[in-house]
């Protein structure tokens, strides 16, 4: 496991003495590593004097935490109400087909992860897909196919 313990300790030091910091710590650690590596969870538990089970419980309770390595790019397909009635399910299925993975999975080359998200609050632009932090609005299966078959890295360089 290639986890940088030094980096982790630096993060933890900031939270020294803060009450109820577990969720904020997990958020910061995930920001740094892209997910929550198992050794990090143990070290966080030691740091907070909490049983490991409690740290693991919190890390698995909330949707935003990941225990496995994620892809470089996160594709989040909104499944909010407005998106749903305008065809979000087709959007998600098309994304699964294009990336050849199921929702929640990561491509074997660790390039893309596919997620569903409850609501992004961009309901007026439904259905929406979030690629990293970029909102793509009024999507159709066709637009998803276009979006995901071109290489996102290339597109970033051109833009």
């Amino acid at each position, binding site marked *: 496991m290639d986890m940088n313990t030094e980096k982790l300790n630096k993060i933890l030091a900031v939270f020294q003495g803060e009450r109820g910091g577990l969720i904020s710590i997990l958020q910061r650690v995930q920001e740094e590593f892209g997910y929550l590596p198992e050794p990090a969870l143990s070290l966080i538990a030691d740091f907070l004097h909490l049983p490991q089970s409690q740290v693991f419980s919190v890390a698995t309770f909330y949707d935003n935490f990941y225990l496995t390595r994620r892809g470089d790019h996160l594709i989040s397909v909104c*499944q909010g*109400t407005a998106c749903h009635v305008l065809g979000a399910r087709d959007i998600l299925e098309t994304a699964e087909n294009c990336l050849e993975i199921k929702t929640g999975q990561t491509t074997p080359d660790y390039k893309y992860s596919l997620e569903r998200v409850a609501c992004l609050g*961009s309901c007026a632009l439904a259905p929406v897909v979030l690629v990293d932090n970029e909102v793509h609005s009024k999507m159709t299966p066709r637009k998803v196919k276009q979006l995901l078959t071109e290489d996102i890295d290339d597109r970033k360089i051109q833009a």
Partner: protein
Amino acid sequence: MGKSVSIQSIEAYKIDSAESLVLLRETLLADQNKTVKLVNVCCGSGCMSSGSEQVREAFISGIKGLELEDEIKVKKTGCHGFCERGPIVVVGPENIFYQHVTKEDVPEIISETLLEDRVVKRLLYEDPVTGQKCFHENDIPFYKKQKRIVLKNCGNIDPTSIEDYIKVDGFQAFAKILSQMAPEGVIEEIKLSGLRGRGGAGFPTGIKWETARNVSSEEKYIICNGDEGDPGAFMDRSVMEGDPYSVIEGMMIAGYAIGASQGIIYVRAEYPLAVHHLSTAIARATDMGLLGHNIMGRGFDFVIKVVKGAGAFVCGEETALIASIEGKSGRPKPKPPFPAIQGLWGKPTVINNVETLANVSRIILNGHEWYSQIGTATDKGTKIFSLVGKVRNVGLVEVEMGTTLREIIFDIGGGIQGGKDFKAVQTGGPSGGCIPEELLDLPVGYESLAKAGSIIGSGGMLVMDEDTCIVNIARYFLDFARNESCGQCTPCRLGTKQMFNILQDITRGKGRPGDIEILLELSDAVKQGSLCGLGMTVPNPVLSTIRYFRKEYEEHILEGRCRALVCRALIFYRIKDYRCKACMKCLHACPVDAIVGAKWQVHEIDQSKCIKCGTCMEVCPKRFNAVECVTGKIENSGDKGE
């Protein structure tokens, strides 16, 4: 005080008394009058994703190129609520409202409107009914029937600029209570105003404050609930992004009223811009001395911090939210004890929703008499709804309580898209219900909607047309509920799952006679046997749809038909061979390569591969119109669908 302020030294200016706030405001307003023209570019999340940042940059560089920076100021503002029309740009001094502005349009707006005072007509909103062009925001039917109290600053001020907020009477209400009102007086004012919680349950805000006030404790907390989890509601997001100082001022007033010196804003992690704007606003207010120790020299201390949520819908529930701030899994606890008595870290804690808090400064400044005149006898003030779905004008609307659903959907929303028929409106998200056409004249209010089997909730309003399947909607909400159930109450954890399975079966053509009765029974069990508001309300979407649309359930179960052509197991697409011109359009567009055929060879859909996404129908040229969607089982269709 005898102190003066120059516009250059505002960065370092400290507000240490009510007088210094007044002085600053006067200085800012005097300076504002010098600016001749203003370009307001909406930089809310909606407009940003349509490219408003590029539009803003184009304005800045275009104006710089003409060396007109001193005469024309470019400002980023919060959300206008009409996100679908974004990016929105308002050009002063005439406040011309331009929609769908792209960076290519900017040179024309500069040369025509800003330099020549001429309107660029093609960028104006056109009333679809009358065909008339609308010059100003208030000419647009979408805005005409709204009453914007909470949203009054959104779209007009730069959300991160404390100066902008002070110019529109910001912190005046806070200064008023510090100098003129006792905490009890503030609570009385809020009680008399009739303000009720806007987060869903509608508990009277003043009573909540009073309860916390009456508990003696060294430590008390104000929590702003910005965990807007209802899918389809985004008003809190807009307020936090577009007018963060109003939320902060509301918290300061609440803090003074109950005797708390600490505030926490709990925001969904899915709202990064809201987190950013709130954090910026808190830092600016702290710099100016409006947050911190001995504010305005009156001996009142108050600080605020932002806590990010981690993706759990149940954390919108008060006790779960508190658990989350304490670093635990967000599982609700039994009430009592109520958080107002024993909340965060066991101390008295008031949790108010974003929209509720944004109302507070308006009430204090204008008085309870003013506020209680708005609305109806039982429901005071306004409510923001996020009007989404199949309605023509999609966006955020703030209306007086008592406005009818028909007025909201047809007058403000412009009716149904594409000339289809209205079917139902779903209010209140996963805890709410579906309201049919015959009840459209219902005035919106806490009790009136509850009587119809729905709730105001956080204010989601999903409009459905004939193409929306009612069983599919119920299935959707139960899918959401079963995913978000925290799992500690068995009826909620297993009941929602069972209900989902039954609904799933019905939408997949596997419904059985008696399913409706089992759904009703399970709904009752989940409602009765759950601890928190989530479990108690999530059967509502099922109950209300069975109540008003039982026939559609029966069609699915007994006839295998989905009249809205949504449930995939009950529909299929086919190509009418006599209309197909073998143009290959659908063949290329199909995302799963389910269409067989070639040039000169009529196309056919391989039903075993088809995911029923409708792309073929979408791309088939209108003049051919060769693809159709039908309901019923494939083998009964009498066509070569097999």
